[in-house]
């Protein structure tokens, strides 16, 4: 059993300008872990993912994946190393078919291997089978989200990062999505999901991080955080959580 942690962040600070958006981030994920990152908009959740992916450079600290420091590696190299990334807004290729989008997820493999992986992926996402020749730009939000995740899976990643996958999706589709993600865990995949819809993410993941103003404000198991009434307050401003009060 591989005991190297899958992903380690140590004292990471990162940002876009001269002032860091996130700081003091310490995090360790082992193979097979699932973790949800929740918090208000602007708290730094997306920046965390972008830092891991190399879109944003660290001003402090180290990011290590599978024992290898990621330092200045560009995004595409990190993907090749085995980190699957489903960014906010999905970033599909709208004028290309679903099949082509999937193929590009395994662009460096041989044609036979690619076809094999596509067949595998379609078993995970059977709803994509009838859509396989359709243009991605014409699909619904939920369908596009499936293609985005499927495309990331084509690269056989060991770590999967998802940025707000439930944005704009109906609750039923969201549950289906997370059910599919759960089914992927059997293969030893590690999953980190940033979510605004806290409940779905917390039900799926075993651990959670709560982000506030660029720092980790709380961590724990999902059960703990879900049952905590302060979570609801933090999101919806009920009793006691407004500025000016303790």
């Amino acid at each position, binding site marked *: 059993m591989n005991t190297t942690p899958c992903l380690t962040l140590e004292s990471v600070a990162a940002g876009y300008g001269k002032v860091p958006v996130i700081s003091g981030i310490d995090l360790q994920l082992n193979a097979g872990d699932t973790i949800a990152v929740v918090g208000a*908009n*602007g708290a730094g959740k997306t920046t965390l993912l972008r830092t891991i992916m190399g879109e944003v450079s660290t001003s402090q600290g180290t990011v290590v994946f599978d024992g290898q420091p990621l330092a200045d590696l560009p995004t595409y190299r990190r993907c090749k190393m085995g980190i699957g990334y489903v960014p906010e807004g999905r970033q599909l290729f709208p004028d290309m078919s679903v099949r082509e989008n999937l193929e590009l997820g395994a662009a460096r493999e041989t044609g036979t291997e690619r076809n094999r992986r596509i067949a595998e992926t379609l078993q995970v996402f059977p709803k994509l089978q009838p859509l396989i020749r359709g243009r991605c730009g014409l699909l619904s939000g939920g369908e596009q989200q499936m293609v985005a995740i499927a495309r990331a899976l084509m690269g056989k990643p060991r770590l999967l990062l998802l940025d707000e996958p439930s944005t704009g999706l109906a609750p039923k589709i969201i549950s289906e999505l997370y059910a599919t993600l759960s089914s992927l865990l059997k293969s030893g995949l590690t999953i980190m999901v940033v979510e605004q*819809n*806290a*409940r779905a993410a917390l039900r799926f993941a075993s651990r959670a991080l709560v982000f506030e103003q660029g720092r980790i404000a709380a961590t724990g198991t999902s059960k703990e955080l879900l049952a905590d009434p302060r979570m609801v*307050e933090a999101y919806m401003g009920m009793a006691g959580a407004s*500025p000016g009060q303790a």
Partner: protein
Amino acid sequence: MKSNIIQGVCLVLLTLAGVGIALGGSGYYAQTLFTIALYIVLALGWNIISGIAGYVSFGQVGFFGFGAYAAALAMIHLEVEWYLAAPLAAGASALLALVLGGIMLRLNGIFFALGMFGLARILQITASSLSITGGPMGTTVLPAESPNESALIMVLVAAGAILIVHALSRSRLGLRLMATRDDDLAAQSSGVNTFRAKLRALCLSAAFGGVGGALYVWNIGYLDPNSAFNGNIELQTVLMVLAGGIGTVWGPVIGGILISLIGTFLWARFPTEQQVILGALTIFIAVVMPGGLTAFFEKLGWWRRQPIWSPPPAASLKPAPSPRTGAAADEHSVALSCRGLGIRFGGVTAVDDVDLEARSGEMLAIIGPNGAGKSTLFSLMSNYLTGSGATRFGERDIHGLKPYALAQMGLARTFQSSRLFPSLTVWETVLVAASSGRVPRQTAIHITTELLRETGLLDHWSEQPDTLPPGLQRLLEIARALALRPKVLLLDEAMAGMTLHEIEQVHAALRRAMSGGCAIVAIEHVLPAIVDLASRAQVLDFGRIIASGTPHEVLRNPEVISAYMGADYEGGTQ
């Protein structure tokens, strides 16, 4: 102040040196001086549209040639002297720019650049084909008596050009151009008519080119299409500005002198390889040091751009002027009302039949999960997007009004992701909005000072926005919106990522605005930020309003909770 004195002294010294050479030097030196001074004028002109306004043009030589022909024709057919032909040429070029700019400045940068690129060629072909311009063989005019005479005039014109550009860079127009260059949309939302500002810049730029052309033809006495529209002129002009520092006042001057000298040297030693060397130099500078020498000096700390206007040294404590219309609005009267707003993108309905009202002195909160369409709704309300439905601002239907006009009327907004002006200081950022429309200078300065003080940003007044922590950056955006003295303020997740202290400052500023009669509509995703301030709330999900009422009512609505937290939420609610 000190910087102005230094610049003034430099200018006087340079001018005196130029005049001295012009009067005392030999014909060769005078001619070289003429060329240098001419290029300085062309470079300053190009810099106005490409550097300060940020709309890169490759057609400066077009205005140069056009001005040269205009002057030549005036001197031949209207029998005027050079001192009338030159202003005429400047005017004609400016007029041409007015027509062209009217078409091309509405296009994005690449079309403008290519359009101007094509302009020079079109003008060259036209000059070649018409008999009035002498066709391909060109035409002659009565030249200046000696190169010394034309050099003297050219030096004085160059000095004048430097003065004009300096004045521009410290003026309201210059401020607006720089804001437009940094972020056209944000400038419009701060009340700047960006199209008109760019048009003025283009006309000024063209006038510089035109006067240069006129004096060129007077100097040399002969004009043909090939030399009037020579690509070499364009190359050297661009290179000079790049080398010296694009977007600055003295950059084109330094670059002009430097590259002219290099060019003259090359012309003597490598006449046929000149363009290779200059072209390679252009590439080098564009890749390695795009800010030119000026950026280099800035890094060394030798030089810094002076902010435009500045806060008064000892500010007195006067109350801020009231919202734009003068008379304070009636408490609770409807300042903004929307009926049936909707928009579709492809097959997706982003906003679906939304009605809402914003009342003076009150805050309406718009809440909802990400992707619900809240920012799209704001864009519809402020005419950044056009969809179905109608919005009334006070009594007036605002359909078709441009965003900058709305801003000037008192409808302000912030954006979900910060849109600040990277090259302006904190002071200038707020000043852009405070001085929009026809607000007098002293009033604008007063408003800006008061706002910065109220939001606690006054100590940072001369800093660049990217040195501020994210929370202060959002605060700055709010201050900029408030500087419009709005009757209606749309805040789009303005307090995301702020510390508690910063949120308190924003609350204080918003309370002040509301007590002055402002109506606020605030999108917030997380509610602790505004639940104290908002008197009403509406919840948006999938583009439709699913609940309305007071914030507390709305937040206990089970439909709302499930929209946020996911269906069948079982967590702890009281």
